[in-house]
């Protein structure tokens, strides 16, 4: 009775279900399509030449206490904007339910607002400590995070944690980690007959004063570790100092300036005027002269090392200031700028597919930023008709350029001259980025 009763119903139901599943399962139309392709009877199209656009990113306000949430969102948005890789969507357009957990997304809600990527997270602040969780989603890939990180620490470390996450986001998309947390070194007028050396984070935060001796301190450069080289008139003469010593490392007659430490460290190119005419010399980091690199009748200044060990510099040996390059031993000198009659302040791209130098050039009465591709000779103008733009410095990853503009301070832009953002107000000169 058991078998022909309730149990029988269950078995029959299972039996019928099995049959139904087996025979009602739809035959995949891909089978037919695959067959058509094999037979050469399907329609085929080749599409060439996609257009390109910034990756559209939505940053959802992190869940948590309002002040912490806003702070994290502001840092995220500012970093993503500065990176020049993302277009930030207006949060007013977001339609995903706020009840959706931070570790998943509603794909259709984001596709319909045009988002390609989404960042969600949560933050909690207790006393002086924080806990932060951030997740990156790629909308068309999956509804779970493609990158997720958790951070905790003192509140003062919150900005650094968000920078770290953005660096990982950039690495996720490009294969090369972002550089948030890197710093820009520069000299700034701080009073009459007074200049000081400063550093600032690439997002414009964390301004730090390196010198405070009441004199003119200028043309700084990064040395090994936290060491900074700069020229100071504190003794009344332009001697070269390093930030970890009281005594100058170079105190020759005339100029001692423009130190540029070689990529591998251990030696630097400096400008000295031993014969009354500025020339470039190779020294060790203690100032011991190893070799004279230039000896033309003209003036040679502003040495800048390239990633391959070459040195770019400015010389007027051709009649006007132009950019030249030479080997590390002073050989193989060649001119690389031919347009314009006042090209100065070269800075080599540390990580570009083809060797490139960014420099400033005078056009009529104003200065602007240009790049020259050393392989093709192609010159690209990056700024125009927006005040004077000088002192360009290439970012360590080669994606951005920092410069000073009379529009109001230090700006960052991408290598096409687009997405120009003011990061620090006030005067600045001789920018160096590491």
């Amino acid at each position, binding site marked *: 009775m058991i078998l022909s009763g309730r149990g029988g119903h269950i078995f029959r139901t299972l039996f019928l279900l099995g049959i139904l599943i087996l025979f009602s399962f739809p035959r995949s139309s*891909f089978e037919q399509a695959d067959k058509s*392709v094999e037979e050469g009877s399907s329609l085929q199209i080749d599409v060439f030449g*996609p257009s*390109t656009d910034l990756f559209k990113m939505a940053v959802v306000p992190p869940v948590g206490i309002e002040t912490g949430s806003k702070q994290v969102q502001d840092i995220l948005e500012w970093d993503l904007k500065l990176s020049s*890789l993302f277009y930030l969507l207006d949060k007013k357009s977001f339609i995903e339910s706020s009840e959706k957990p931070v570790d998943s997304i509603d794909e259709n809600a984001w596709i319909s607002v045009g988002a390609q990527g989404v960042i969600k997270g949560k933050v909690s602040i207790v006393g002086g400590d924080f806990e932060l969780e951030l997740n990156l989603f790629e909308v068309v890939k999956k509804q779970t995070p493609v990158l997720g990180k958790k951070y905790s620490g003192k509140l003062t470390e919150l900005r650094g944690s968000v920078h770290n996450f953005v660096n990982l986001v950039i690495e996720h998309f490009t294969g090369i980690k972002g550089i948030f947390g890197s710093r820009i070194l520069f000299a700034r007028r701080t009073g009459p007959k007074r200049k000081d050396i400063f550093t600032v984070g690439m997002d414009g935060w964390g301004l730090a004063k390196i010198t405070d001796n009441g004199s003119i301190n200028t043309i700084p450069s990064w040395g090994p570790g936290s060491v900074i080289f700069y020229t100071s008139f504190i003794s009344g003469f332009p001697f070269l100092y390093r930030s970890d010593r009281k005594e100058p490392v170079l105190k020759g007659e005339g100029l001692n300036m423009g130190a540029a430490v070689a990529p591998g460290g251990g030696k630097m190119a400096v400008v000295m005027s031993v014969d009354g005419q500025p020339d470039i010399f190779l020294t060790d980091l203690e100032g011991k002269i190893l070799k004279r690199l230039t000896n033309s009748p003209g003036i040679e200044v502003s040495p800048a090392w390239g990633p391959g060990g070459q040195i770019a510099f400015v010389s007027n040996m051709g009649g006007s200031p132009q950019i030249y390059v030479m080997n590390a031993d002073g050989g193989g000198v060649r001119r690389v700028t031919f347009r314009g009659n006042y090209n100065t302040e070269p800075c080599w791209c540390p990580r570009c597919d083809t060797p490139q130098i960014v420099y400033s050039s005078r056009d009529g009465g104003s200065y602007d930023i240009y790049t020259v591709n050393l392989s093709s000779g192609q010159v690209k103008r990056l700024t125009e008709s927006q005040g004077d733009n000088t002192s360009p410095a290439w970012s360590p990853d080669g994606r951005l350029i920092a410069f000073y503009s009379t529009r109001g301070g230090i700006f960052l832009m991408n290598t096409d001259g687009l997405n120009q953002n003011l990061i620090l107000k006030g005067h600045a000169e001789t920018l160096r980025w590491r």
Partner: protein
Amino acid sequence: MRFSYPSTLTEGVLIHLLSLFFTVFLNIITLGTLFFISKTGLAGESGKGKEDNFGKKEPIQFIPATLVKLGTPPDPDGVLHRKVPALATGPKDKIPVSTELNVPKKNYPEDEKAPMFAVEDSKIRKVFEKARAFAEITDNPAIEGLPDGVPEGEVTDPSLVKAGNIYATKLYRIFKEMWVVPSYMSQKEIESLMVKVRVIISPDLKISDYKLVKKSGNSGFDASVIEIFKKFETEGRSLPEPPDEIASKLFEGGLEIRFYGKDFGK
């Protein structure tokens, strides 16, 4: 549906045992089939089907298509016409020519023809070239064609066109317009990549399913192609009506699209 119950216990036991056997057996087959389908991608789930990795580069093969020109239908009784600019575009009276009399003669190899003019890089030749270009420009060129033609079309007689050529061009334009790759990818990288997608089209001209049959090896590039089909889905887009000659082919055999990064930005 009604079920009849067995009259005796023995029959009942036997039938139930058989039912049990078949139920278990068929469910195992069913589950096994489902597992196999899910693994091989025959289920054709959107973007999750069978995907090959982009290994060897496929040679690009071109089949030249003859297309009907977009324009106004030609008058069958009239003659072909072409608007010629009212103003003469020939060289002006004063032609800046080289005053150099003794231009050195260059000896050209036998297989290389001497240039049209004796003076190399002659300004006269430049003027002629310029004039030729201007001669084709009119304010309102009369374009003979058909309303359902395409700008790239060359002929005005539809009988000269293979069925599907124009339709394929229309589809090409739609997919090209919708295809945007993220700017974080380098031009060099983009130009080296290709994705092949197989698309199933339902009779209501919606994209009912698609799968990447060949990936590019770059997830950003692949995602840019997937986005096109996701947009079709979320925006409820349809493809244009195909001509009768190819409609059944399109609905039965689907569509295979190769997305090449080559000619990026053009």
